[in-house]
């Protein structure tokens, strides 16, 4: 069994060679690992490799093929790449050429929308201001654009990644 994994900017090839209970032989980009893996609770793994005890905590992202992975020193963004995700990725990229969606990476409240549908905005212009945890975050456009649609109104409570403004 093999997998392709995107970790930050690197893409790694994983091959599962042997399995015996929690003891695994795995090949990562040609390097072989003999590890003892156990899920101690939901989302928390204990991994022993060459006697070293590692703790790894992971959170599945909305898309079940994306993970945020915490290790002792660093947090990684990991994506499992299989045929389906390759297809979706291509599809999404095609769409991105036609229209863009402005959204907030965290839940919050709409404080201000200084534009309206049909407006022509310049690169760097703020199109929406979202407040979260006592801080206000301004979302700007990177290029000259036209506001196609505004999906929210001032005062709305929004989820993370919820489409706020569609630009052309």
């Amino acid at each position: 069994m093999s997998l392709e994994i995107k970790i930050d900017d690197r893409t790694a090839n994983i091959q599962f060679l042997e399995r015996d209970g929690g003891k695994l032989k795995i090949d990562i980009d040609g390097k072989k690992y003999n590890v003892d893996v156990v899920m101690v609770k939901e989302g928390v793994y204990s991994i022993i490799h060459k006697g070293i005890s590692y703790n790894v905590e992971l959170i599945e992202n909305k898309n079940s093929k994306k993970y945020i992975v915490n290790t002792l020193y660093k947090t990684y963004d990991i994506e499992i790449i299989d045929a389906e995700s390759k297809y979706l990725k291509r599809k999404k990229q095609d769409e991105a050429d036609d229209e863009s969606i402005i959204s907030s990476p965290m839940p919050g409240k709409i404080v201000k929308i200084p534009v309206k549908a049909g407006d022509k905005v310049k690169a760097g212009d703020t199109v929406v201001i979202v407040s979260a945890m006592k801080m206000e975050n301004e979302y700007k456009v990177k290029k000259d654009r036209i506001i196609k649609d505004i999906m929210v109104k001032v005062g709305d409570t929004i989820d993370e990644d919820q489409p706020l403004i569609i630009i052309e």
Partner: protein
Amino acid sequence: MIKKVLIANRGEIAIRVMRSCREMGIKSVAVYSEADRTSMHVRYADEAYFIGPSPSNESYLVIDKIIGVAKKCKADAIHPGYGFLSENAEFSERCKKEGLIFIGPSAYAINTMGDKLTARKTMIAAGIPIIPGTKEAIKDVNKAVEVIKNIGLPVMIKASSGGGGKGMRLVKDEKEIISSINAAKSEAMTSFGDDAVYIEKYIESPHHIEFQILADNFGNTIHLFERECSVQRRHQKVVEETPSPLMNDEIREKMGETAVAAAKAVNYSGAGTIEFIVDNDLNYYFLEMNTRLQVEHPITERVVGVDLVKQQILIANNEKLKLKQEELKQSGHAIEFRIYAEDPDKDFVPSPGVIKNLTEPLGTGVRHDGYIYEGYEIPMYYDPLISKLIVWGKNREEAIKRLKRSLYEYKITGVKTTIKFLERILDTDDFKSGKYNTHFIEKNKNVLMSPQKSKGNFENIAIIAASIDYITKLEKLQPKKPTQNLGNSWKDFGRKRSILRLWK
């Protein structure tokens, strides 16, 4: 005696106060906004009442609502915690009018200390040292030169309408005085349309050191020594410790006496904090007074051995202070780290969310004051402070090592936190040697802000964990081997003696 206290706050401080209430046999009453129904302070309290929508100006800041609940549930007193209504003179006054005990100082003390200019005047009158300078605009340049010579160089020329570093000039040499004033004036005019500037002594290596005060209603005022709070990011304290590495016994005693005098100058009652700016030569100047419990009060509690919230309640109950200045002493060293739900790799943007896994630091010398729990969602409406990690050591060196150990143990998934950032503070030479001032974070920015380097095998270990999780879930979705159990549910966990068998 006070029998029931309403805590007009949320988060860790609400629980902190409730803990002391419980130890005193006092019932605690929580109030909560819409976003806080599942918050720990609601679960911890004896009673809990809803006070409105999530934004604090519609709930925690609405005096009428708080007073209404207090009267309805027959509370004797209100503890405001810190933030929210804690330094609101109107609230203090209103409680008094309604026959409720406000656990804090009088409106007079809050007002006097709350207004910078009034505070400055009151302190001058009481003989408390303040940062030398003129608060009035300079009209006559020659007179300015005379004032500056009196204050002593270096000084800072600041625009009266100023801000953001515009219209500011640092003067180190006598010869530069006149040219600097003119330059500042001209820049102030351009920037703010107003050329008024004033003079303030420039503190080259400023330390933020504060003294904890306790005062009863009978004129007894004591201090519980200092807290060093110079590690600040955007004027927000990040680390606090006591004793201050800068201090010696002589200056400690002197500053303590000054702090007591400052509190007495406003007839202070309750727990309060006198903040000083201190330079490397141990000259100190009154900065302001916080007329409430501080976030960082636990380090004083640990080193002096006094429960400050209990003292607040006893004072509010009109009891005389039993603590005597001469009996108090500092024992060992305590450091507090504030843990925020912020992403240090992305300019400290707040990171609300659901806590998935939580491992709190424990063991000898560790106190952890938090309010989150696994499954709790940190709401986006309030301060992103998750918890305060307070460690004690026989000396500063042991405290630092213990802090490092505690941060190692402290694991949170689901939100980004400042834990990694704090670990990097502990690794700087400036912090380790105790030789730091309020420029610390700016000075060490490169080290503190650099993203963590991956060490050894961690990246591949992360890959292993994610790929195994993925494959395990994939196999669960394909019921081709219905008898094969992947051990994910509680029950299966038990059956398998906790060893997860990924494959047969």
